[in-house]
């Protein structure tokens, strides 16, 4: 059986060697390469994810828009965006729109949705060239991890000074802050009944963040989990 390797693709996760060293098995999924599993069954990795799991979502699509009219334009594209900053809004197609400020949004595609919200927007943006609305190359400027499971808030308390306890930080809340001394965005986005947090941060710090998280994970027997586990949550 030939192994799918990130080095066969033009677009690669910055830390794919680290993922390989973790025992990652990659698969191709709609033109991107992602970790299917780390050598365990989807069920086992789902159990791991319920405790404490680390998922690399960097291959999946995300995009950003900023400027005075950015939110207005995104709304004209049919996105549902509420009035509160630092709040994420779920779209009918499963995409998540994070309102970072009055002048900036971040769109995170639903990782298992047929519809790529980000590409739809990028096409419209290229066509419309809206005034006072500027694209942000989030696919490349930011890495995207997800931390799942009941120990995730305790784990975060070792690297981040924000009160992320489930009752203080309800689903959909956003914190833009420092994580292990790296600026980043934390968005709570539970996977059904499993607490889950997106972590979006400087892509050049991907290996660094992975190692900080792995260190913080040890105490709770946390481990990386592949994409196949997510549908079992």
């Amino acid at each position, binding site marked *: 059986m030939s192994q799918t390797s990130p*080095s066969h*693709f*033009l*677009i*690669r*996760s*910055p830390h794919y*060697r680290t993922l390989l060293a973790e025992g990652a098995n990659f698969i191709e999924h709609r033109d991107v390469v992602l970790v299917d599993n780390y050598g365990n069954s989807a069920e086992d990795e789902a159990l791991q994810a319920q405790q404490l799991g680390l998922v690399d979502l960097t291959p999946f699509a995300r995009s950003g828009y*900023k*400027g005075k009219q950015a939110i207005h334009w995104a709304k004209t594209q049919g996105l549902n965006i509420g009035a509160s900053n630092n709040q994420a809004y779920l779209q009918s197609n499963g995409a998540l729109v994070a309102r970072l400020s009055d002048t900036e949004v971040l769109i995170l595609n639903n990782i298992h949705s047929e519809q790529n919200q980000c590409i739809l927007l990028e096409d419209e943006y290229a066509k419309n060239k809206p005034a*006072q609305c*500027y694209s*942000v*190359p989030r*696919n*490349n*400027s*930011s890495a995207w991890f997800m931390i799942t499971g009941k120990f995730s808030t305790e784990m975060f*308390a*070792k*690297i*981040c*000074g*924000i*009160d992320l*306890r489930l009752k*203080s930080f309800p689903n959909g809340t956003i914190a833009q802050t420092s994580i*292990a*001394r*790296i600026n980043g965005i934390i968005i709570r986005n539970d996977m059904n009944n499993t607490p889950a947090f997106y972590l979006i941060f*400087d*892509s*050049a*710090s*991907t*290996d*660094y963040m992975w190692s*900080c998280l792995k*260190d*913080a994970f040890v105490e709770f027997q946390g481990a990386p989990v592949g994409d196949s586990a997510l549908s079992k949550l």
Partner: protein
Amino acid sequence: MDTQINRLPASTGLYVDHNESITFSFEGKNYTGLAGDTIASALAANNVWLLSRSFKYHRPRGVMSMAGLEADTLVQLDGEPNVAADRRKITPNLQVSGQNYNGSLEKDKNANMGAFSKFMPVGFYYKAFFRPKGIWQKFWEPVVRKRAGLGKIDFNSPHSYFDKCYKFCDVAVIGSGPAGLSAALIAAKAGTEVILIEQESLLGGSLNYSRFDAEGKVASATRNELLEAVVAQPNIEVLTNAVCNAWFADNWLPIIQGNRMYKLRAKEMVLASGKMEQPAIFHNNDLPGILLGSAAQRLIRLYAVRPGQRAVILTANDDGYATALDLLENGVEIAAIADLRPSPIATPIYEQINNNGVSIFAGHTVYAAAARSDKNHIQSVELREIIGQGQCKNESKHFDCDLLCVSIGFTPTYQLALQSGGKISYDDETARFSISQLPKSFHLAGAVNGFNKLSSLLDSGNQTGKAVCDNLGLDTKGITSQQTMSSTSNTYGNHPWPIFPHPKGKEFVDLDEDLQYADIVNACKDGYSEIELVKRYSTVGMGPSQGRHSALATARLVANETQRSVAEVGVTTARPPFRAEKLGVIAGRSFEPERLTAIHHRHKELGAQMITAGVWWRPGYYGQPKNRDQCIRDENLVIRNNVGLIDVSTLGGLEVRGPDAAEFLNRMYTFAYAKQKIGMSRYLLMTNPAGTIIDDGVACRFSDEHFYVTATTGGVDNVYRTMLWWNTQWRLDVDITNVTAAYAGINIAGPNSREVLHKVCNDIDLSPEGFPYLAVREGTVAHIPARLLRVGFVGELGYEIHVPASQGEALWDALLEVGKEHNIQPVGIEAQRLLRLEKGHIIVSQDTDAMTTPQEVRMTWAIAKKKPFFVGGRSLQLIDNHPSDRKLVGFIIEASQNESPKESNIILDGNNIVGHITSVAYSPSLNKIIGLAFAKADTEPGMQISIKLSSGMVIQAQVVEMPFYDPENKRQEM
């Protein structure tokens, strides 16, 4: 064989398990203790009291507080120095030894140091060791270090995992005695989240060891009731063996538990830290066997250890009598009780002792203690009648004893309260400290606020719990609390002057530092009256116990000597940490961010020696360190003669977009951008408002309203933030986005670069006419969307290719692949720095400093004088009228020199320093050493400058025109 002759029966000893014995060793001898014993309690059970030798005079010392408050219990473990023997639990085969002795702990060869105390008056360090010059470092320091000091560090001790952790709560309660428990319960019942922090392994505080009634029953009953209630409250989180080591602004509390530090943020803070019992000051008050009354009680109730066979009590309050009752009940004979008060108050506890027929000497003190023949333990005390403040009659009564319990007063455990801004005051009536002026969210409960009786401790806790809830806006009306018997407040009994000087001295005020009564008095006589100065002169309070047992006595002595009140004198600042803390705890996990380019791992696979550039890692050169210089020369020549690849991803990248983009750049940078052509780049030089150069780069114009701006690797974050700051004020219609991490950049440079690039780039006209020098283009390279910049940093034909970071590695791979037939090579930043030096290009912050103006580096060509405004412009106008006396020049030296100049070597004009070398290297293309240096402003090409080498030798260098290489710039414009 059971050797624990002082072990009490299993009916007592909260901390110990009478069914589990543990063997450990002290000073090479094996002892048996119980699980739960501390080192000190297990040794006490074996009638071993001598734990250490004192700091200065090497006097025998033992436990005094059993609460980890003093330095005398510090012992040495395998690989761990300065462990508090009265706090650390024993473990099987633990090896413990004493500290600070010469020979053996029992027979210290330096024990005669005390005889020299007359020759070591207060401040003698300052008086004795400073002459002749240098004698301290050469002679005295090694001698003193050997004799004084504490444990030994083992540099081979294994690393442990230390970490830090954030934590949050509504109410933090420090201390779990009766007041802390009742405050926590009220707050929790009102619905708050409470964290209860207790430094011991069990909750209860004084309820665990103290005696509040004649029958000796109320403490344990109250304890059981409160602890049951705490367990029943799910919103109380209990942290035991945890020390709150400081208070910082807005209730930010470092809580140390084992190898972890919690950084706890509490909305409200309750300090229920209790009180610290204070020693009395008399001759030989430091002998092993002299315990605070509370220490005797802790030994009995917590550890099931009988503190002695025959005791004398020195007291001035009811606590001394309570201790006496505890001793009697546990088989200790009471030889006598000396009560400093002329007429003791006849409380029920007092009456019970009195009825037992114990000899009570009212108005008496222990005037002196005497040691047994081996000098290592108390053998007897001498009682005298008090006739005035610190004065006694000459007649004495002697009592043999192996235990002296001292209960003459307390200080509140005030450290955290004072750190929060609280002020200490002193009440002459009650002879005690009190604390006021605390922040609104900082509350005191219990003994730390002066309360003593159990009923008032509980009341105080309840009141505090309610005050906390009031602050949080919670209703406490319906909440029931522990019923108390009386609401009348009372305070603990402090004697105002338990200080009795002796003709032979050795009445210690500070045991850590071996400071005697006369030392403090003489410090005042030497002219020091402020408490902070007395501390620095005498070292009082500077030892490990940080004045916990000396602050009150020192304040009283200084007040007395300077005719002021104790409140006026006060105490020295109680800085963090509250207890000694390990450096590992402070360090925790070290978070040192490092950024990697998309091509980082390829560099390593190609054998690069990686070096740091700010937070980034970059390839220095490719090859073995032993071949470093050759590698850099080869890489230099690859670019000059062929084609090479340089990873320039760390270069900052900013998108400046919007109708005002050009106007914005006009204001931020010195040059003019309004008329810059689309598809062209232009140099950028940024100055700060003072006209100092702070960054440079290029602006690439891709449309009327879109510039792609580069910035230096180390400068981009600041440039970005500064741009946002200015536009917050200017409100121009422009957006600035930092896209540094979004782009990987590869500079393909060298005479063959066009040819190589052409193989993977078909949608851009690469001809010199179609894509001239300084032009910028968008297209694809190796199927990857790319921005191409024709720049001349290294002075050869070259293209910077900027692509999405996720495809940077693929681009690198593709260029290396198609460049194979030209023998393309990767080139590191060492060679790149040399290449730019050959071209005379400055690197901002290497060739400039915090004062460098464009004039000094001859870049006034980059200043557009007709603009109405740019940041730094007005200052540069001003500077034009005050020309600098230095400028940056290029110099050359023949390469045959024995010693090469280095960066930062100074430039001399006669004996005056006029500048320094900012960049210097051997240029293989020129076969000369070339460099940039600041020299006098009138230095011109053809002149010589004097360089002082690192060896001190001065050499001459020839100043030349720049650039050194290809002065007509033909090669980069090919």
